[in-house]
Structure formats: structure tokens, C-alpha cells
């Protein structure tokens, strides 16, 4: 019952957060310089052309009035029409969303595998040279941001050692039988592993660039919590019962050490999605982030608003999910 109440509370705060984001983005992009109408018109357009187009997009009304029109549309699921492509914003955004989601999830999986392996190996081999080497690698991975990793990967694997694709989402000449834009997922479902391989090979480099800093954070925090847990009496006791060191780490220490890391992954995953904006640009990957940059360059106000709202929905939704998982995994919270 209490659990249910706290879920309701979280949902309502989530709604308020989203409304706040909508207000801020709407007003900010109207205050910064740049006129979308001026960018659409050919040179030599007359004053009356400008007035006509401005009225057509409702940009002649006062900003609060524009906001009310927009937000009442949003509530009904109408995010307006893109100024540059003349297509509904919702459709444009939803078409690109799968690409970004697949990229982010792949990056997250890579980060968890790399970070988890570093933490577990470091704990198992504590006090050895391997542990020291892992710590140094971790520190290096942490001190370089994702977009620099992107450039490093492009230089090494795109230019010097061209074994991975560094541009696009899929080889353009391939015939895609897909009905959704979740290419990677659909390739598996349709058992088209040839396509899957091509798509994954395109995603691997940008996903790795996004994953490396997160892997380092996961590795560091998880190793730290493991270290603290390994000193606890019940872990020592498990050893006196005759369990192997690996069993002790995996079954006694890990489940109790993982909660702080899980929370952190939740927070960091939203940063990772934020990171897709630049990484998608670097790797010419056709996702939301890449579209966001185009939208800003073109001052496509409705499109920018739509993308920001969608990002906000993903962020808050994901945080909600993490909180719920956290509560479900912790017996002390579950019974409280």
C-alpha cells in the first residue's frame, strides 16, 4: 500500500518536472537570437512574405499565447509541424527515437560488462599487479570525455585500422525488410543475422565511445563497494564455511554491493543519452541527437521543443524505473 502511494507521488512529481521543462525550453528558444522565418525565405523575399509566413506558423502572437496553443496541442498528442520538413514533429521524433534508444542501450550494456568485469577482476585479484593495472586504466578512461573517445576511436579504427564502420547506421546499399525503426531488434526477431551484424558493426564504435567513461565509473564504484563488503563479517563467515573466493565475491559480496552502483547507473544513463547528441553527430548516426543539432541550426522551433520534451520523458521515466527497481531489490525497503 505504502509502495503504491510512493509510486503515485513519484508519478505526480514527474509530471510537474516535465511541465517545467516544457515551459523553460519554450521560452528560452524564443529569447535567443535567430529567426526561423528569415532562414526559410529565399533572398529577395518581400516584407509581406515575412508577415504572411510568420502568421502561418503563429509566430506573430505573444509568447505566452503561443505557449498555450502549443501546450494544449501537446496534451492532445499534437506536437506541431516541423518548420523545415513540414512533417508532424511527433512522427519525425518517433522515427528517430529507436536509433538513439538502441545506441544508448548497447552503450549501457557494453559499459556494464566492461565496468563489471573490471570491478570483479580487480576484487578477485586484489593486491596484485593486475589490480593496479585495472585502477590505472580506470583512471585514464574516466579522465577523457565521451566525445574525445569518439575522436580517438574514429582515428584508430576508422583511419589507421579500418575494421569497424565509423559512419551511418547501416550500409546504404543493403535492402532493409524492416517495418519499425528498431533495426537491431528487428534483425534479431526476423533472424536476419547478416543484417544484425552490419548494424551492430556500425553501432559498435559510437556505443563504445559512449560506454567507456560510464564503464570506468561503474568499475570504480562497484569495486569500492565490493571492497567494503568484503570486510563484512558475513563475507568472512562464508569463507569459513568453505566457499571459494569467487563464490564469496559473486554470491555474498556482489548482491549487497550492487545497489549504489545501480542507482548511479540510473543517473549516469541519462547523461549517456545526453552524450548521444554529439556522438551521433561525430559518427553521422541517424538518431535523435543528430536531428536535434540540425533542428537548432535551422531554428526549427517546434522540432526542438518536441525533441527536448521527448528527452525529458526518457530521463524522468528512466529515473522512475531505477527507483522502483531499487525498492524491489532491497528487502529492507520492501518490507518497511
Amino acid at each position, binding site marked *: 500500500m505504502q509502495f503504491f502511494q510512493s509510486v503515485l507521488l513519484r508519478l505526480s512529481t514527474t509530471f510537474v518536472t516535465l511541465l517545467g521543462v516544457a515551459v523553460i525550453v519554450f521560452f528560452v528558444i524564443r529569447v535567443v537570437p535567430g529567426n526561423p522565418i528569415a532562414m526559410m525565405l529565399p533572398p529577395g523575399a518581400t516584407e509581406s512574405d515575412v508577415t504572411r509566413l510568420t502568421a502561418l506558423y503563429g509566430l506573430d502572437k505573444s509568447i505566452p499565447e503561443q505557449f498555450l496553443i502549443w501546450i494544449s496541442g501537446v496534451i492532445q498528442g499534437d506536437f506541431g509541424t516541423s518548420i523545415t520538413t513540414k512533417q508532424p514533429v511527433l512522427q519525425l521524433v518517433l522515427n528517430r527515437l529507436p536509433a538513439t534508444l538502441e545506441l544508448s542501450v548497447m552503450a549501457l550494456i557494453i559499459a556494464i560488462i566492461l565496468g563489471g568485469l573490471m570491478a570483479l577482476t580487480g576484487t578477485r585479484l586484489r593486491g596484485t599487479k593486475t589490480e593496479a593495472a585495472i585502477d590505472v586504466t580506470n583512471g585514464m578512461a574516466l579522465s577523457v570525455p565521451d566525445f574525445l573517445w569518439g575522436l580517438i576511436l574514429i582515428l584508430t579504427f576508422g583511419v589507421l585500422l579500418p575494421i569497424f564502420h565509423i559512419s551511418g547506421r547501416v550500409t546504404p546499399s543493403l535492402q532493409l525488410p524492416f517495418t519499425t525503426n528498431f533495426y537491431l531488434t528487428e534483425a534479431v526477431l526476423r533472424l536476419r543475422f547478416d543484417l544484425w551484424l552490419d548494424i551492430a558493426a556500425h553501432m559498435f564504435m559510437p556505443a563504445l565511445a559512449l560506454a567507456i567513461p560510464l564503464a570506468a565509473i561503474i568499475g570504480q564504484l562497484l569495486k569500492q563497494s565490493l571492497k567494503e563488503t568484503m570486510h*563484512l*563479517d*558475513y563475507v*568472512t*563467515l*562464508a*569463507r*569459513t*564455511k*568453505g*566457499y*571459494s*573466493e569467487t563464490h564469496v565475491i559473486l554470491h*555474498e559480496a556482489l*548482491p*549487497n554491493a550492487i545497489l549504489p552502483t545501480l542507482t548511479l547507473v540510473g543517473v549516469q544513463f541519462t547523461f549517456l543519452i545526453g552524450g548521444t547528441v554529439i556522438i551521433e553527430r561525430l559518427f553521422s548516426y541517424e538518431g535523435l541527437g543528430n536531428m536535434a543539432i540540425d533542428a537548432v541550426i535551422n531554428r526549427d522551433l517546434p522540432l526542438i521543443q518536441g525533441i527536448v520534451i521527448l528527452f525529458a520523458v526518457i530521463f524522468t521515466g528512466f529515473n522512475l524505473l531505477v527507483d522502483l527497481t531499487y525498492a524491489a531489490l532491497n*528487502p*529492507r525497503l520492501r*518490507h518497511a
Partner: protein
Amino acid sequence: MSDIYPAKLYQIDNLRLSLADMTQKPLIGAAPRLEILKGLSFDIPKGEILGIVGGSGSGKSTLGRALVRLLEPSSGTIKFDGQDITHLPETVLRPLRRRFQMIFQDPMSSLNPRHRVGQIIAAPLKLHGISNPKQCALEALDHVGLPRKFAARYPHELSGGQRQRIGIARAIALKPEFILADEIVSGLDVSSQAQVLNLLETLVKDLGLTLAFISHDLSVIRRLCTRILVLHQGQIVENAATAELFANPQAAYTRELLDSIPLPDPNQIWT
């Protein structure tokens, strides 16, 4: 014959143990070694309740951890039931570990918060191939005087005294020959203390256990133990039967300890 020379479960000979002193570690290079146990020799006969006393930092816990081979001695020998276990590698020790168990001071931190009591007791039994672990776990609960329904509870749903009983149940469920109890009643109030001590006494008799009981509280030791080992700065200063030690303490340090017992002998007030 066995009356004169009771079988010895533990034989400890010139046991030394040093640890790296991390507080003195130079920036580069190895930390200096700190000798914690400085050549201990004693035996633990089967069926004995051995009290280990000494001031804080005297090395009681370190000795205990060496006995159950959580620590590896630097030199000397530890023989368990005739077998030299001083430097046995972990893989060889593992099957032996069932035979010497340990109970910790803090009952909360020694129970994995994520597991139910029944699972905590039964899991090691499975590891050692003991048949019917669930049934054995319930019987262990009977032994320590807890209702069987506690098997379904999580550690945080128990009181301190109950948790300590779970710690004992978990140790005896493996049917060990030896149990090391490190300050296991220090965190409990006087009445739970008495209950746990009574329980230990009964279990030792009923199950034919040998027990080493570490405490800094001489009154607890006096009540429970048949023999007492007094440690001071990593050395044995006295090793005597309980009655003998209290009647006629030999070492100056033992007398100091006896004088510091909080409740003095009431007769002394009038002399």
C-alpha cells in the same frame, strides 16, 4: 588411558603471526611487518571450553582467526586433530572447514541481510554435501531454542539475542568439532547474555563440541570455561584451569585483570 591424556583437538606450537602495518607503509615499497602473535604454544583437549582473555589489542581475535585459518601463521604449527593445517592452501582447507566453525561478535553484520534465516543456515550444508539441508536447518533452530517459523524471516526481523542464536545455529548445523566464539555476548544485555551462555554450555555437552571462547570479560569466562588462557601483547602469560587461576593467579598481568573485574568480591569490602 584417555583419562590421563585426553585426546587433543588442537596442538599449537610456537605460533607466530605478523601482519603488514599499513599505517607505517612508505609511499613506495612494502609496509613493515608487525608481529601480533609472538610464539604461542598450547593445546586444546577435546571437549574443553577454553577461555581466551586479554586486554584490547592483545591478539585474541588474531589468534582465533589463525585457529580457523582465516589467517596464515608466519611460523610455528597448528595441528587440528593431528593434521598440520598451518600452511594448507585454501583449496585443501575447504573440505576441512566444516569441522571448525566460527561465531562473530556482531550478529547483525554476520548475517547476510538479503537471505532468509533458513537459507543462511542451510546453504553451507548443501556445499558440504550434507543430506536434507532444510531439515537439518530446522533442527539447528530447535537446538538453539528458536521456533521453526523463524526460518522464513530476514535477519533484520530478529532481535539481537535471536540473531546471535542464529549465528550459533548456523555454526552447529554443520556438525563441527570445534567452535570459536569471538566476543559473542559483548553486544547483549545481561539477561540475553546469560541465555546465550547457558545455551552454549548445553550445546557443548549435548553435541560433544570443543569451544574456544574469546572475551575481555573475566566474569563471563569464569562462569563458562574450564580452562583459561591469558594473552598479553601477543604472548601467553598464563594458562591454567579456571578455579586455579582465580584462586592463585601466577602472572602479575592476570592479577591486574582480576582486580579490574567490575564487581569485587563482597567480602573484601569488610577486610
